[in-house]
């Protein structure tokens, strides 16, 4: 395994972490539009918190996909064709959600509700199926000698993958609630915190179920005992931190902790897979490895130069954007006349 291969394995993990950290709260806010709010003004208020940034956050996914294609074409090809219907559902979710930001703003009032629903449902579908995809992937999938995966329904949808999907939804929802608490004023801010306080109790149960299933359904504990255990413990610790912080109204800490949980989760998945990128349930001979799925050293080198040159610039203007929009979105009272 070359250093560049390892670097890009890590970078893919970083890009997915960035995606879930940032788009995670967008999904949460999207779901909250139909589940947390009491009136149209509150819906507008929380959508406004992510209005300027959601599109940029989604680019993390596009970059992760592009980087996967460029640095691990065999992984990309196996994963994307193997998870055809799952990824298709994710795309459909991203589509109905993506257009609803612009559409709900412009449609006549009576149709706005429809696009609120597409926003919420799309925001629910995407993290759920990403959870299903990654968790079924780490259990091993039927991949043949040519790297083609032909799985059946039970391979995709099983107890562990559903727990994974629900966990992703719950984590995104909580992350969104924490973001709303951080970015708004008025009744919605308190309501978001109350919801979060309640949901953290459920998340603990989810995390325990997740850890137990991981022990039985994957080889992570057998192959990478130390890192797997450490990262699982880290996820629990981060959840405790977020939970305590939300009780103490430490909004920034809560938000950072809930976002970091995603990073720990991605790290858990990637370290557990290492040095494989796809696990074959037919035979370990057919596993896709870091060493045999990557691009040529030359392509990896070119990609590395590009990333080193431009990633800092990208991160700088993204950070600047968050700074520009640092102010809380004010709560607009409902007018009697309307």
């Amino acid at each position: 395994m070359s250093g560049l291969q390892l670097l890009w394995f890590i970078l893919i993990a970083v890009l997915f972490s960035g995606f879930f950290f940032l788009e995670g709260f967008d999904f949460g806010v999207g779901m909250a539009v139909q589940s947390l709010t009491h009136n149209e003004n509150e819906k507008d208020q929380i959508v406004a918190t992510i209005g300027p940034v959601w599109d940029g956050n989604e680019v993390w996914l596009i970059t992760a996909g592009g980087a996967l294609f460029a640095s691990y074409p065999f992984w990309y090809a196996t994963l994307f064709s193997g998870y055809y219907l799952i990824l298709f559902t994710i795309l459909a979710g991203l589509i109905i959600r993506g257009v609803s930001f612009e559409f709900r703003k412009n449609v006549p009032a009576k149709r706005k509700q429809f696009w609120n629903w597409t926003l919420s449902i799309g925001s629910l579908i995407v993290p759920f199926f990403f959870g299903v995809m990654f968790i079924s992937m780490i259990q091993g999938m039927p991949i043949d000698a040519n790297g083609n995966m032909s799985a059946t329904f039970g391979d995709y949808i099983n107890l562990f993958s559903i727990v994974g999907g629900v966990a992703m939804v719950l984590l995104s929802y909580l992350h969104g609630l924490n973001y709303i608490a951080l970015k708004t004023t008025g009744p919605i801010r308190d309501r978001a915190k109350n919801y979060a306080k309640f949901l953290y109790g459920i998340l603990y149960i989810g995390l325990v179920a997740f850890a137990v299933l991981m022990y039985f359904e994957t080889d992570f504990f057998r192959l990478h005992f130390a890192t797997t255990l450490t990262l699982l413990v880290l996820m629990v610790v981060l959840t405790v931190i977020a939970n305590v912080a939300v009780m103490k109204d430490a909004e920034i800490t809560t938000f950072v902790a809930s976002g970091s949980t995603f990073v720990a989760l991605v790290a858990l998945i990637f370290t557990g897979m290492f040095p494989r990128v796809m696990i074959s349930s037919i035979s370990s001979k057919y596993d896709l490895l870091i060493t045999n799925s990557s691009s040529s050293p030359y392509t990896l080198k070119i990609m590395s130069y590009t990333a080193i040159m431009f990633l800092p610039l990208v991160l700088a203007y993204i950070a600047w954007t968050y700074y520009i929009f640092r102010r809380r979105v004010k709560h607009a009272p409902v007018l009697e006349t309307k």
Partner: protein
Amino acid sequence: MSIVALGRFQFAMTTIYHYFFVPFSIGTGLVVAIMETMYVVTKKDEYLKMTKFWGNIFLLSFAVGVVTGIIQEFQFGMNWSAYSRFVGDIFGAPLAVEALLAFFMESTFLGLWIFTWKMVSPKLHVTFMWIVTLASSLSALWILAANSFMQHPTGYTIKNGHAVMTSFSALLKNPQLWYEFGHVIAAAVVTGGIIITGLSAFQLLKKKVGNPDFYKKSMHIGLLVALFGSIAVLTAGDLQMKALVKEQPMKFAATEGLYKNSGDPAAWTLVAWANENGHKRVWGVEVPYVLSILAYDEPSGSVKGMNAINKQLVKEYGNRNYYPPVNVLFWSFRIMAGFGTLMLLISLLGLFFTRKKNQLLYRQKWMLWILGLCTFAPFLANTTGWLVTELGRYPWTVYGLFTIKQSISPNVSVASLLISNTVYFLLFTGIGITMISLVVRELKKGPDYEEKLDEEEKRAAKIDPFDKEAFE
């Protein structure tokens, strides 16, 4: 139905649909940036109004462009996994670079542009829009770098049955890339100019139009942009065609419907119909000399026909059918070139008839109708242009290296493809209808709507002077 046919259908449907909105956004984005710049320079409110009004239409198209764009990156892996494995070492890099260099910039600065009207200085604000325009053009450059490799592979070697990159700069120096880039960007500029011209014309045709000067000025800017773009399109297209004669003779011969070798000098076929199975032309109308001029810039020189090229390709690459769908290519090319030329003429005449001395155009309803109907012309030209480029590469995905049949994902079922095709179709239809109805709604609201909204907001703010959070 075979998975290859269904996969091809999906690629055609999703890219054509996506590509309705790409040049729409790049083009109208550019015009909006110009309008806002004029506002910053002249400080006249009417330009601000224009920026906001056309900016809203730009944003609608951008939103649909973004969501349909993600499909493109995913479907290479989903539907064309064998292709992705074959060419990933080369093809993936420009896609990743596109996301890193262009998409982040585009989305971030667009977010800034939409939400900072009241937060930053007008100069900084217009800069955001220019950055968005620059980023969209950059994204076009990278995706076309990937496409150009498919059209004309450079800087690679074949290793263990896969294409491996040997030179990244060769990817960027590919002459095909610069023809395509020039053509695509210029066409986007035309698209933006014509859409704004055409929609303004429709508005002027209404019996009660609140602010005719607003639309006249918008139209004038649109026409100027379209004229500039049209000239560039024709130049780029001409250069591209001359390269095509050498690089992809089959595509060129098919767009001319030429089965047998032409005479010298070569006559150009205006209209024709081919019997594709019999490999011969059924009928056609020819104009002498013109094809030689188009191909070589001089009134002599013959052009090879498809029958001869097919024989040559069989010898070079093995025995298979190399004839592309001739009638589709022949007519697509004529629709593209015809509408391209038409838009050049329309923008010239439009500017002539709206000159200060004699503004005949605004008095002649039929002229406004023509301009209005022109709104649809760039969409037709853009689509047919890509049909020529992509279908004309038949039977290859990467010219001379990898065929369409080899490219498909072997593990994807017909059922999966049918489901995704159906749902995409329904989603696209729903989104398309909503998009059009919202553009119409925006047009009905008119340019003064934003101002009224602002006033209402101010009034609403006055109702609640005790809002404690205002001081937080």
